[in-house]
């Protein structure tokens, strides 16, 4: 069997091996392609930059292992940015059962516990079951819904929570997800209380959110790994996402190459048949 026949019969394996190489090489030896900043990401950055002491930023976390690579770098960058803002309060609530794992990981990675005082500058509420009802409850009357935080501390013992009662006290909400809870925040916080909302999303969720962005209902979107890389650049702390962008660029080029090749083969074979 000739090499051409072997490749022809095992073309899928060839495609997979080449994709693996295309992704692995830039991850090991970054090319350092520039990362252009999208307006959707810049808007999130600018809104956080405009926060003043006493403002409350709520972070919704529905990060799971499956979306870790795309959304977790966004989450870390936003927490890092918020921690740099003096006097800004951070309230974190998890919408997925895996959320607390990634929230604690992000708080440790950003050294939140040593940089700020827990209970005064930031609070982690933990996982709240109930999807939209949970978000509605948080927006409506947080203290009526929850009595303790993730660690079991009474909310009444945490000074930061004295002034945070409902969505009227939230300055901004940023939800990190691949699920519908971003929509729930929009329904419950934006539509009812007019709270400013932004999303950190996986790529497949972006088209939904973009319609809300262009309508002015959300102030920004961090779009998948690309958005995370842009945010890392904006805060001047390149990390995991920036490293991944070279691989993503080459993978996209590879896909385009495959599409072209597919069509060349398709039209060539079509002509031969005729």
């Amino acid at each position, binding site marked *: 069997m000739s090499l051409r026949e072997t490749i022809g019969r095992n073309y899928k394996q060839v495609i997979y091996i080449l*994709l693996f190489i295309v992704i692995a090489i830039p991850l090991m030896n970054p090319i350092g392609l520039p990362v252009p900043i999208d307006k959707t990401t810049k808007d999130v950055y600018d809104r956080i930059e405009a926060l003043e002491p006493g403002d409350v930023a709520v972070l919704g976390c529905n990060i*799971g292992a499956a979306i870790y690579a795309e959304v977790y770098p966004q989450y870390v960058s936003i927490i890092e940015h918020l921690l740099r803002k003096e006097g800004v309060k951070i309230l974190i609530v998890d919408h997925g059962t895996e959320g607390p794992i990634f929230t604690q990981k992000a708080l440790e990675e950003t050294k939140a516990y040593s940089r700020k005082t827990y209970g005064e500058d930031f609070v982690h509420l933990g996982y709240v*079951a*109930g999807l939209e009802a949970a978000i509605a*409850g948080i927006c409506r009357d947080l203290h009526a819904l929850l009595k303790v935080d993730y660690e079991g501390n009474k909310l009444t013992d945490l000074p930061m929570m004295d002034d945070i009662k409902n969505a009227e006290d939230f300055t901004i909400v940023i939800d990190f997800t691949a699920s519908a809870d971003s929509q729930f925040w929009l329904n419950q916080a934006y539509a009812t209380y007019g709270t400013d909302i932004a999303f950190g999303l996986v790529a497949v969720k972006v088209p*939904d959110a*973009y319609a809300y962005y262009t309508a002015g209902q959300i102030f920004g979107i961090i779009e998948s790994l690309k958005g995370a890389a842009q945010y890392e650049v904006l805060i001047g702390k390149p990390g995991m996402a920036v490293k991944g962008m070279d691989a993503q660029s080459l993978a*996209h080029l590879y896909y385009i190459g495959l599409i072209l090749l*597919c*069509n060349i083969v398709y039209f060539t074979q079509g002509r031969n048949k005729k």
Partner: protein
Amino acid sequence: MRTLWKYLTSAVLFIVALIILLDFAFEVPLLQRTATDLNNWAVVIGACALGLGAYSLIVRHSRMIMRRTELWPYSIVLLVTMFVFTATGLITGSITSPEYQWIYTSIIQPISSTLYGMNAFFLAAASYRAFKARSGEAAILLIAAVFLMLKNAPIGMVISPILPAIGQQIWDLAGATGMRGILIGIGVGTLALGLRVIIGQEKTPLGGAD
């Protein structure tokens, strides 16, 4: 008896929905308190549903193991995994304990990420096998996809700033407007379904259409 039960549940649903809707429209302290309580009940029920889901999973997979149905060994894997995670969480007292984190980051995270990452490989094979310009519409889709890929990766800007600009135009004009139409359609559909549920025309949430 069954009919009476259905009338009763329909009536409860109608009253609850009315309270929530009125609370949205008017600022009445009594309504607000009642609506908050009802909403908090929904959250508690949501939390209980997690336990119910776990119970249902255990019962179902235990039966599959006992009956030696097809692929029953996977049921053992599922139950053992559930038991190990639950026991570790209960013993260490937190899902962020080092022990729980170790199991999670060593097993679940790599498996989930791998499964999600495999999409990239399927996509590569699909790009070669299926993305053919068989018709005018397919050709438009194909060209749009290429521009959007170049918009979404920095390499597009490196090749030429025009490429991502074209991608952005496709995204703004075709993507966002099309998606907005879909979203408005979903909104209207949800509203209609909600009204049907409230007035008792939609029986599915109450346990079936019969």
